[in-house]
């Protein structure tokens, strides 16, 4: 009697364990596939903190996409101001569209900022670290 109960418990436990392992394997495979797809074309699929792609941001503001972090920021600002004012909820605009316009500008600015940071880091690596030291003499 006792050995039957014990075998039953062991069988049930191993079945649950096996199912859990299979599930976790499937999860890992899926996440690996997603990461591979994301790394293949980093420009279009990287979602920033704002969850907006650079492509879409440029389309929303109707500005040419920045090439290597170089873009006309004043033009972006002008387009943003114009569209933002056009869609003012007080003048019959849509608050949702206005939000999208704001996020698009933020996205483009973030792109430019990160490009600047990378450029600064590379310049530092090339020329060596030159800290500004102020000495009181």
């Amino acid at each position, binding site marked *: 009697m006792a050995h039957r109960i014990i075998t039953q418990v062991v069988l049930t436990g191993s079945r649950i364990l096996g199912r859990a392992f299979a599930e976790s394997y499937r999860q890992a495979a899926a996440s690996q596939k997603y990461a591979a797809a994301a790394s293949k074309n980093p420009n279009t699929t990287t979602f920033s903190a704002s*969850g907006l792609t650079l492509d*879409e*941001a440029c389309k929303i503001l109707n500005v040419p996409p920045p090439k290597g972090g170089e873009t006309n920021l004043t033009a972006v600002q002008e387009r943003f101001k114009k569209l933002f004012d*056009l869609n003012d909820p007080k003048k*019959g605009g849509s*608050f*949702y*569209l206005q*939000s999208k316009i704001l996020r698009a500008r933020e996205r483009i600015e973030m792109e430019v900022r990160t490009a600047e940071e990378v450029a600064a880091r590379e310049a530092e690596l090339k020329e060596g670290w030159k800290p500004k030291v102020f000495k009181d003499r």
Partner: protein
Amino acid sequence: GRAGLVALRKSRGGAAFGRAFYKGGFEPKMTRREAALILEVPERGLSKELIRKKHRSLMLNNHPDRGGSPYLATKVNEAKELLEKS
């Protein structure tokens, strides 16, 4: 004071007081919820007339011929079509 205000504005996404701006971009595929948000109409129990009126005013503002963005104009049209269909 000032630092606290800045932190509050950051956490609320652009506006310290009043409504915070919606986060992120457009959804990959237009949903009923998004369409209702764009046209600023209630999701249920809306009339054709209201949709038409809202769509007209938005298109007047965002028309590509008058300096609007073509992408936003297509989104507005898409929202209207989706809401009129059902």
